[in-house]
């Protein structure tokens, strides 16, 4: 009888002690992990078959993935910029321009620096983290040059092509033009 009680007490103490482990640096125990862990390789996961063990791949050179957008034809250079500025036109017309979505996207991807009104007074320049953001109205830009800048960046601005799809970029361009005209 005494032994039983002792083991029960010991067991209870062990369980209490182990359940009080509050260091959350390691993932918890799993029950039947083969129901939890995927069999296939997961997005952003490891893949030992590829270089540096990374699952993410770029398309093979000279190919375009199904459903992906076509490559941008203008070069990432001063000449490419001038050419796009002169001749590149938006595929959107008054029926397909979606002001609301353009504004939403602009606020997410541009307003941190360029400001909600496009005057270069975003949160980052205000806090002097990222300086030298011009007012759109001061600059001689066209929809082609705006698109080129989103694709490749300009000066200290980086390329935002990976964050927006082609159609979204043109929506943003339309919204920037609207900010310039108001």
């Amino acid at each position, binding site marked *: 009888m005494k032994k039983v009680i002792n083991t029960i007490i010991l067991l209870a103490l062990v369980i209490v002690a182990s359940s009080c482990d509050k260091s959350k*640096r390691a993932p918890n125990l799993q029950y039947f992990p083969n129901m*939890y862990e995927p069999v296939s390789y997961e997005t952003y996961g490891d893949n030992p078959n590829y270089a540096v063990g990374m699952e993410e791949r770029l398309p093979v050179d000279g190919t375009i993935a199904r459903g992906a957008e076509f490559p941008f034809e203008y070069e990432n250079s001063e000449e490419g910029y001038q050419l796009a500025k002169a001749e590149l036109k938006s595929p959107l017309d008054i029926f397909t321009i979606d002001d609301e979505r353009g504004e939403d996207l602009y*606020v997410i991807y541009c307003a941190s620096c360029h400001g909600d009104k496009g005057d270069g007074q975003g949160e980052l320049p205000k806090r002097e*983290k990222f300086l030298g953001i011009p007012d759109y109205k001061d600059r001689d830009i066209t929809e082609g040059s705006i698109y080129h800048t989103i694709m490749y960046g300009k000066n*200290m601005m980086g390329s935002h092509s990976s964050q927006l799809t082609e159609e979204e970029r043109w929506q943003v361009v339309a919204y920037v033009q609207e900010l310039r005209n108001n």
Partner: protein
Amino acid sequence: MKSVKQQRLISRLTLSSIAFLFIFTLNLSAQGDAANGKKLFNMHCAACHKLDKDLVGPKLGGITDIRTTEWLSAWIKDNASFQEIDADAKEAANFSAASMTAFAFLSDQEIDDILEYTIPVEVVEVAGSAAAPVVVQEQDNTLLYMLTAIVIVLVLMVFNLYRTMTVIKDGVESKSIADSLNGVWKAFKGNKFLHFLLVIFFLLNSAYFGFGWLMQVGLDEGYQPIQPIAFSHAIHAGDNKIDCEYCHTSAKHSKTSGIPSANVCMNCHMNISEVAESTATEEHSKEFYDGEIQKIYDAVGWDKDKLQYIEGYEKQPIEWVRIHNLPDFAYYNHSQHVTVAGLECQKCHGPVEEMEEVYQYSPLTMEWCIECHRETEIDMTENGYYKKIHEQLANKYGVEKVTEAQMGGMECGKCHY
């Protein structure tokens, strides 16, 4: 008489020197207003120029020592046509492949202001004035220490007095406590019912804790792994108010919310290679944060002094540790929740903008999913496409508003297939 003359001379000299100083200072202030210059510089120049080091363009601190104001003014207003008539300008243009924007809209006064701002200002030693308040603070502290010491001594004295008084009153007290404890123990030893109660108590207790422990198997609420880079959401999303979706771009279109690739980091960190002094916290110093930024550069091969990617650099992936992970038998799609339902990220991920280090905020259990589906009402006003089906649903359930659960958000096959 002689002395009077001398006095006159002296007074005249001082007067004229004061006048000269006055005119001179007036002249200085007419040259440019550095405060306005700073504003203009930050807006128009700082994209490519810094005062203390080269960026896209050369560093501009002390540029007025190298070039004349007229030369700089001509360059700023229209550098392209200035290059055609000035040999120095043509040479200066070779600094970078990028050509500088023409700032024809800047007035002469504004250019003067900017140039005034570029003149290096000697940092005035303020050690004397800074030392004074520190001394005052120290005095404050000693006073506080003394007061605490006095209070402690007083408390000790009162306690001592009380103890002596009780000893005088009752004589041998400590013995009686041990005696009474012994009595209780003896009574307990003989009482079988108490033993039975104790066993029941232990059994219930261990069942409670045992069940509690079993129930948390597979749950990771509060999971906070150590990440390869100590990226602070508190600084980026909190202080700088960068939108979640700026980095987690694919949340609007895809199943996963998207771990930003390093090029997204570089969109800002091409320019920001070190944090401001004010960013440092008690926990992490400025050097610590600068070191963390350096880790991005090491991953992508960016030379922060030359401001370009190192050619032929073997890039290394940054191996972030996944925190939120649903078991493989449950399907979850970010775009459905972010774009269609329009939920805030914080609804599930908690106050990430306040987290220095991200942890799992929600339990991610099925109960937790279902609870939200039961409560959340569908916004039926702004979606013309589903107008008819929404009306039918409202009729079917006899309610004006339909919850996510009534839309089918509780069908097994929606998440498990």
